[in-house]
């Protein structure tokens, strides 16, 4: 008799479960995700296109359900996603107008992407205003989550602080007798923050080095750095820090190499990963090279199933190894899947945000903890290596790769990165 | 000391362009209501004289007094305000606008200067003035035609009409009949001089055509190489040796070419 009851209870449970399942089964079966990236301009080839490729590849795999476990379920909460690819170029103001169109005219479900810190900084408040679930994939300025608490905006990779703190630490370990340093960075949020963080960290961990008083901040996408390079060659500093990326970086490396800049000085390029694959033997040996985290060339040989799947599939489709941006966009799409799987394909922006806030997940190349910015900003390890051209393989390799855990290169949640660095990086666990 | 009726006094006027002397010791008194003809070969300094009086050119030396006020140093605008106005050898009008619009603007500027210029232009009062001018200068038929489409003669009329609407005391006409056919020239001048007589405007006009000079002027100033070689009634002027040799002679000579 109790038995009966139990059966009955189970029965009801089962029914309700089915009903529930049915309820979910009735959810949307397609969603649209807008993926903004540089399709034009100097940033497109080295950065925007690989990024878009990464996003497309991962989306297809998710739609087909061919990602390795644990992500081998079909679709985003069961729905298959179609991507709207659009250009990130043309300045922040144009992007703001486009973003409004995406949300209010084209009614996209989610927006995943953005490379330029300028754009992310401009769009974060708009996304909040329009209450639109948005995942920033690549842009790096820490300000986005330090200026204000965000409800709908996420970033699934570490920010500039981790790149530059790690760079400084790597420099300290490998060039302990380095005396002074200078830098060339683009004159916008990304460049300014990168230099600031690197400079401040150096003052903390290598107090007896000095910064040059003539650091260069050329206009982004300038493409011609002749004068800046000679200004730096004259500089007594024996290290050059640069957060250049994309076409600007490649132009700078060419022009600098031709003028023997990297023979005279140690070059530290925090976003060098893309160049390593593209420039081949034109890339000088001995550059301290980062990829804004554990991406691209730095992690090519990590043999996790997810990473091997990513590297091999990408190489099969596009014929080259995936660079950082491909990883970063890929994992941002993956984060979207995780959010949808948790919240359901018909989830509201609020539900999606709740689903992603504060979680920890395995990405293709690393573990991502959404633990900063109130669970909206990812924390990941960050690493550097030194470039070397491998003649017999006919490609660049990085030697002496070293990774620093997130807790070592990023401030704890709620602490502004500048204060954290100036405060001697308290609580850093390296 | 100026004699009561003289409103324009020109004294020792000199204008040089580098070595070239365009005007030399010019001394003239013009009395209220006179109609003065200015004759002389090309480059004799006629237009230069007109330009100096109207402030388009600054004299090198000398003085031009209009009712006692010195004009030298004033710009064209100030001189227009003072009451001296001019027409041009090549009519200076607003070619892409209609006759009516041209005159409206002229009237408006004449009537509301300064802050008034920020009040509506097209007022009934101005309209009535406009119709008057159109009638006087026989321009009604063409009033809605765009200037660029008009014949030389009509443009010249408009050019003069625009110069007159500011009710100047002195009007300088630079070759009013140039470019007007022999048949039309007298009708044309009748219209103009008739209208000007009504207002009692003092008129100085530069003219090549001696028939016109004889017929309309009360006094002739003959220019030669920047100097006035004769200042007398037309009859005597045309009979004068120097004038015949240096002005008319040249004129006939020129006509033959």
């Amino acid at each position, binding site marked *: 008799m109790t038995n009966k009851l139990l059966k009955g209870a189970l029965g009801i449970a089962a029914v309700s479960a089915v009903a529930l399942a049915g309820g979910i089964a009735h959810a949307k079966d397609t969603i649209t995700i807008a993926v903004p990236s540089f*399709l*034009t301009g100097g940033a497109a080839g080295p950065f925007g296109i690989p990024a878009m490729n990464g996003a497309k590849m991962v989306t297809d795999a998710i739609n087909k359900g061919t990602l390795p476990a644990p992500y081998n379920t079909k679709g985003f909460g069961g729905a298959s996603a179609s991507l709207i*690819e*659009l*250009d990130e170029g*043309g*300045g*922040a*103001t*144009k992007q*703001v*107008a*486009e973003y*409004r*169109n995406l949300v*209010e*005219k*084209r009614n996209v479900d989610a927006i995943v992407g953005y490379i330029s*810190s*300028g754009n992310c*900084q*401009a769009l974060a*408040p*708009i996304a909040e*205003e329009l209450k639109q679930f948005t995942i920033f994939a690549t842009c790096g300025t820490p300000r986005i989550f330090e200026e204000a608490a965000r409800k709908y905006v996420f970033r699934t990779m570490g920010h500039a602080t981790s790149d530059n703190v790690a760079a400084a630490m790597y420099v300290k370990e490998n060039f302990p007798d380095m005396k002074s340093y200078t830098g060339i960075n683009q*004159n*916008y*949020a990304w460049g*300014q923050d990168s230099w600031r963080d690197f400079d401040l960290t150096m003052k903390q961990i290598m107090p007896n080095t000095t910064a040059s008083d003539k650091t260069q*901040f050329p*206009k*982004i996408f300038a493409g011609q750095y002749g004068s800046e390079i000679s200004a730096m060659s004259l500089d007594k500093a024996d290290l050059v820090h640069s957060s250049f990326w994309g076409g600007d970086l490649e132009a700078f490396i060419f022009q600098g190499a031709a003028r023997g800049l990297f023979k005279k000085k140690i070059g530290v390029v925090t976003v060098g990963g893309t160049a390593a694959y593209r420039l081949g033997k034109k890339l000088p040996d001995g550059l301290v090279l980062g990829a804004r985290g554990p991406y691209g060339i730095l992690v090519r040989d990590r043999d996790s199933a997810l990473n091997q799947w990513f590297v091999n599939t990408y190489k099969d489709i596009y014929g080259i190894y995936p660079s950082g941006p491909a990883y970063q966009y890929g994992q941002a799409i993956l984060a979207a899947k995780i959010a949808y799987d948790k919240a359901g394909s018909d989830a509201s922006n609020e539900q999606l945000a709740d689903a992603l806030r504060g979680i920890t997940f395995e990405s293709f190349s690393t573990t991502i903890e959404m633990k900063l910015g109130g669970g909206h900003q990812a924390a990941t390890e960050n690493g550097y290596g030194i470039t070397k051209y491998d003649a017999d393989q006919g490609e660049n390799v990085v030697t002496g790769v070293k990774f620093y855990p997130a807790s070592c290169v990023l401030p704890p949640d709620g602490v502004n990165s500048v204060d954290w660095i100036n405060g001697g990086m308290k609580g850093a666990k390296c | 000391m100026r004699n009561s009726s003289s409103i324009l006094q020109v004294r020792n006027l000199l204008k040089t362009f580098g070595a070239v002397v365009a005007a030399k010791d010019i001394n003239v008194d013009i009395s209220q209501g006179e109609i003065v003809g200015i004759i002389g070969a090309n480059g004799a300094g006629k237009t230069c004289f007109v330009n100096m009086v*109207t402030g388009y050119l600054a004299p090198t030396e000398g003085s031009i007094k209009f009712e006692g006020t010195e004009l030298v140093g004033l710009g064209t*605008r100030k001189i*227009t*305000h003072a009451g001296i106005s001019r027409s041009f050898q090549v009519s*200076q*009008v*607003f*070619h*892409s*606008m209609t006759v009516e*619009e041209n005159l*409206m*603007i*002229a009237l*408006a*500027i*004449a009537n*509301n*200067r300064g802050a*008034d*210029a*920020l*009040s*509506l*232009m*097209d007022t009934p009062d101005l309209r009535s003035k406009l119709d008057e001018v159109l009638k006087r200068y026989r321009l009604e038929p063409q009033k809605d035609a765009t200037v660029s489409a008009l014949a030389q003669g009509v443009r010249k009329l408009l050019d003069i009409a*625009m110069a007159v609407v*500011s009710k100047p005391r002195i009007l300088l006409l630079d070759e009013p009949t140039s470019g007007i056919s022999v048949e039309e020239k007298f009708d044309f001048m009748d219209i103009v001089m008739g209208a000007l007589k009504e207002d009692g405007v003092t008129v100085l006009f530069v003219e090549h055509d001696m028939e016109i000079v004889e017929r309309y002027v009360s006094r002739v100033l003959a220019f030669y190489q920047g100097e006035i070689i004769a200042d007398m009634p037309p009859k005597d002027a045309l009979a004068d040796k120097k004038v015949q040799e240096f002005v008319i002679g040249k004129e006939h000579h020129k006509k033959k070419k």
Partner: protein
Amino acid sequence: MFNDKTAKFLLLAALVICVGGAFAPNWIVNQFMFGFSRALAILGLMVLWRTGLVSFGHAFYFGLGAYAVAILDSKLGVSDVFLRLMAGAIVAGVAGFLIGFIMRNYRDIFFAMLNTAISMVLFGIVVKTESLGSTDGFAISASTIFGLSPETKYPLFVIITLVGLASALAVNFYLKTTFGKLTTAIRDNEIRVEYLGFSVAHAIHLKYTISTILAGGAGALMAMSLGQVDPESMINWTVSGELVFVTILSGPGSVIAPFIGSLVFEVLRTYAFELAPQAWQLIMGATFLTIIFFLPGGIWSLIEKLGGKKNEK
């Protein structure tokens, strides 16, 4: 000043648009806000264009207006829509009045170039100064109206429409004054204007100042409707080109033209960008050339052709 066709139409149109806006989807409201904001600047450029002057640097005043709002917002936290608008218009107007003393002596290419030079100076300063936001510019906080912060964009949209209406009526009136009539006249024959006893320099100076006030207001409104300013899209010479582009597109025929023209431009750009993200400039450029060649009177001349027939009956 309301008793002529243009004014009547403007009033009616403004009413319809304000009411319609309440029911229109957000993105359409946005298009109108952007379009009408820019139209203010076009209104001013149209006055210059009629006078035969083309400024290839009015992004200077547009940018001043926009950045006035940005600075007030980021440094002083001023968010009132009217304060912001006034600030933008006044800053640009004062600058325009002062620079006008020089500009009024320039014509043709030199006028265009000097304006370009001045705007590029500002561009160079802003881009290189971190405290002015350098390449990133500033995000603009939502505008408040008499201390109230509205939920939707609709109130701002209404304000922009009404500001546009007011400016259009004002310019419409101005063009009927003696000063205003001296546009084509000056283009045709400056010597005559001088001989009629009117100072061409003064006339041009006034027109220039008016155009700068309007450009400043436009920049301020644009900044508020977009919520973002940056030098690339507010001050660079390409923006000046864009403004001239819309002026030609609209046509000098009427004060209504700039509003229609800017709207067409906004929609054109939105769709060009949506359909051909890599070739939208091409579409714009081609349109521009087509207008210059086959429609010198701009869109307005088309409307007149169509409307003209009706009026005859």
